[in-house]
């Protein structure tokens, strides 16, 4: 197969970027989208041009590194599939494919298709954890966790932190990402003691990073490669309101974490 690729090129954070067109030939249907980009890059490097930068590592849909807008869709056309798992058989021979980085205020472009998603880490740093020191954990089976709760916790914990939800949202909202972690920990008895503080801290960090609000477009749920349901956003809002109403901490939260 042969393709025409229109790819966003940008040298660094400060440089202006633009679309550049490439031809890539001898693509095989079984290749993944990233392997197709690898092939393009080999051809570029051997000609002495700089390869198109993009993030990837596991190449099996679990690390969350790959982050491509393919023809305007986060991770491309296939539902619940990351770009690294998307094979070229889903494209038509000769097609023109547009590839862009995640676009959102809090995700500055680092180079070409690579963005800085440190904002998502900072949301977790603000409260996405249970404060338990090493060695101070009780015997694991002392606190039973109903299977139902464990399963819900798992469904949200499955988030790979790729940022597709943010990229897909017209408002650049990180609600689904944040909600997933809040719901995960709120559904477990171990997460209960810090529940209010967590909700407040994480939501405030999310706002401080400049992510937009949710106006119910639900593009995030469509784009999520792990199929995390948008209904968890409502859960998060409930958690936040509950915390705001009940918690003295609401008045006393620390300032958000600053960018390094």
């Amino acid at each position, binding site marked *: 197969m042969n393709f025409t690729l229109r790819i966003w090129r940008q040298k660094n954070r400060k440089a202006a970027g633009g679309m550049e067109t490439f031809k890539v030939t001898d693509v095989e249907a079984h290749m993944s989208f990233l392997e197709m980009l690898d092939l393009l890059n080999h051809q570029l490097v051997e000609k002495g041009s700089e390869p198109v930068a993009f993030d990837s590592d596991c190449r099996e849909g679990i690390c969350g590194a790959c982050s491509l807008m393919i023809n305007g869709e986060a991770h491309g056309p296939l539902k619940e599939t990351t770009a690294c798992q998307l094979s070229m058989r889903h494209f038509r021979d000769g097609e023109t494919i547009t590839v862009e980085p995640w676009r959102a205020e809090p995700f500055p472009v680092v180079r070409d298709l690579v963005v800085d998603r440190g904002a998502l*880490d900072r949301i977790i740093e603000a409260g996405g954890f249970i404060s338990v020191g*090493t*060695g101070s954990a009780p015997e694991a089976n002392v606190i039973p966790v109903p299977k139902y709760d464990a399963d819900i916790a798992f469904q949200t914990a499955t988030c790979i932190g790729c940022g597709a939800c943010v990229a897909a949202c017209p408002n650049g909202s990180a609600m689904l990402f944040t909600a997933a972690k809040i719901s995960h920990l709120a559904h*477990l008895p171990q997460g209960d003691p810090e529940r209010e503080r967590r909700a407040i801290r994480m939501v405030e960090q999310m706002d401080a990073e400049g992510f937009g609000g949710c106006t119910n477009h639900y593009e995030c749920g469509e784009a999520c490669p792990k199929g995390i349901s948008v209904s968890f956003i409502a859960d998060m809002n409930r958690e936040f309101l509950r915390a705001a109403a009940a918690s003295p901490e609401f008045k006393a939260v620390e300032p958000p974490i600053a960018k390094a």
Partner: protein
Amino acid sequence: MALDPRVPDGPLEKKWDKCRNEMKLVGPINKRKHRILVIGTGLAGASAAASLAELGYQVDVFCIQDSARRAHSVAAQGGINAAKNYRADGDSAYRFFYDTLKGGDFRSREANTYRLAEISGNVIDQCVAQGVPFAREYGGQLDGRSFGGVLVSRTFYARGQTGQQLLLGAYSALSRQVGLGAIRMHTRTEMQDLVVVDGRARGVITRHLETGELKRWSGDAVVLATGGYANVYYLSTNGRGGNVTATYRAYKRGAFFANPCYVQFHPTCIPAAGEHQSKLTLMSESLRNDGRVWVPKKKGDTRAPGQIPEDERDYYLERLYPSFGNLSPRDIASRAAKRMCDEGYGVGPGRQGVYLDLADSIKRLGEKVIRERYGNLFEMYEKITGDDPTRVPMRIYPAAHFTMGGLWVDYHLMSNLPGLFVLGEANFSDHGANRLGANALLQGLVDGYFIAPQTISHYVADSKPAPLSADHAAFAAAEQEARDRIGKLIAVNGSKSADVLHRELGQVMWHHCGISRNRGDLEKGLGKIAELRERFWREVRVPGVNEEYNMALERALRVADFMEFADVIVRDAIDREESCGAHLREEYQTPEGEAKRDDEKFCNVAAFEHKGVGVEPVRHIEPLTFETLHLSTRSYK
């Protein structure tokens, strides 16, 4: 040089307690004065960094990905072992220890392996407290299953995403400390060299992957938790970023590399589809519980699997190993598959694959049951191959997966270079010549949460490292060397991308030092590696400059290290004239193709000391003694 493993004396089950009781402590105020550098944020690095910061040390943490959460531990599917004995099925620390030692074919250090089993339960407690959503039974208790030829149910899991969930647990503990200011996290920052001053590890040189900036970091101890080196085979189940750079650089600075030839090949991976394949995807071994492995009886049979009648199929594992059949251990299953393909019975494109057929189980249990068990794997398989495993038998083939070899460490997980601690897959310690399924995740967390924080404290208390400025000449020299190397790479200006040359190296390793080995092929391999290395430095092309996000440079630097390191693996494989665990030397096997160990000559750890690139390294020996268990021969017939 005599290698002192520093194993405490006394009975096996008392050794770790004794060690802990005798270790020195650092007072809370003094801890704050010490800086520890942790390289890697997989299970081992993240857990160690979080625990050290909780103790009060100042910690700097480095990883190459854009977030600590993306370390390759995230990709582990199957599970994590712990001797909890919740089922009262007779499990115990001792039994777990026994299985691990036997699985490793008596090539691991007894005391380390026992400690792994002893601490396993605490790891599960810690993870549950952090909110890791392990599978539960209806009563709310943890669910367990049995895994990889073990007779008890000791594997805990979170669907097929156990590694992800454990890593997110460790990452959350790490993130908490980052938020509290106790950890400085440096993402997209790659270690380029280790700095050794007066024989002690005192710092690292890093390259920032976005800006190319080279930087010096001085610390009181350095922790390497940088994962395994299976990517030396180019195609493996590891992530694209997997590299040997950190451990290899430490080796060049004097740390000994132990048992580099012990590489595990996983039998159930999706075969490579073509030349541009960038990595191989593992299909959980659990499939072998319900799948039957076969090839056509006729060589080069190109009929579709459905067209091949029952009596023209060879269920070779069932035929060769009647008692374990399709559940034979990883190394046996891998070798048998390769042998079938080498002899011309392989199936699929390139004839490098065998069938794993679920049809009988579907007939017996119904498609619904089988889908419930393996649904997510089927989806993954179908995404990659376009085939539905409930209609067409899956094709599988072995792939390089896990490296038991690594930097040599003593019982404290400290290398022969004082101040250098090595954790997780990067060290050599617990798995001997073959790792049992679900033991690697455990090892990473045992090392990081429970061992290293204590042994590092002891080291700090005992050796009282004085503050050291990064202006010291050793730092300047190491930084300059790193800069020169980068300059040299860019200056080659050849015609090939580093990946293309890396793929060639992978081919040499696969054919000359792969699943089964012999002296003739190994020696030829050594020559080919030397040739390829020389070509690499003539032919590689790295466009662009250092001072930018330069993917080509990043990869070329890693490949350059693989080109040198491959040599050490092959030399170890030549020297080890026996078959043990995953290391099969064709000259040392029974007529039925069973591995033959040589306990007289090789009941030991081989630890290599660098003497120059392509130069025979010095082979040091740590003899292995077994106080509790008697050496016995493995048989899965």
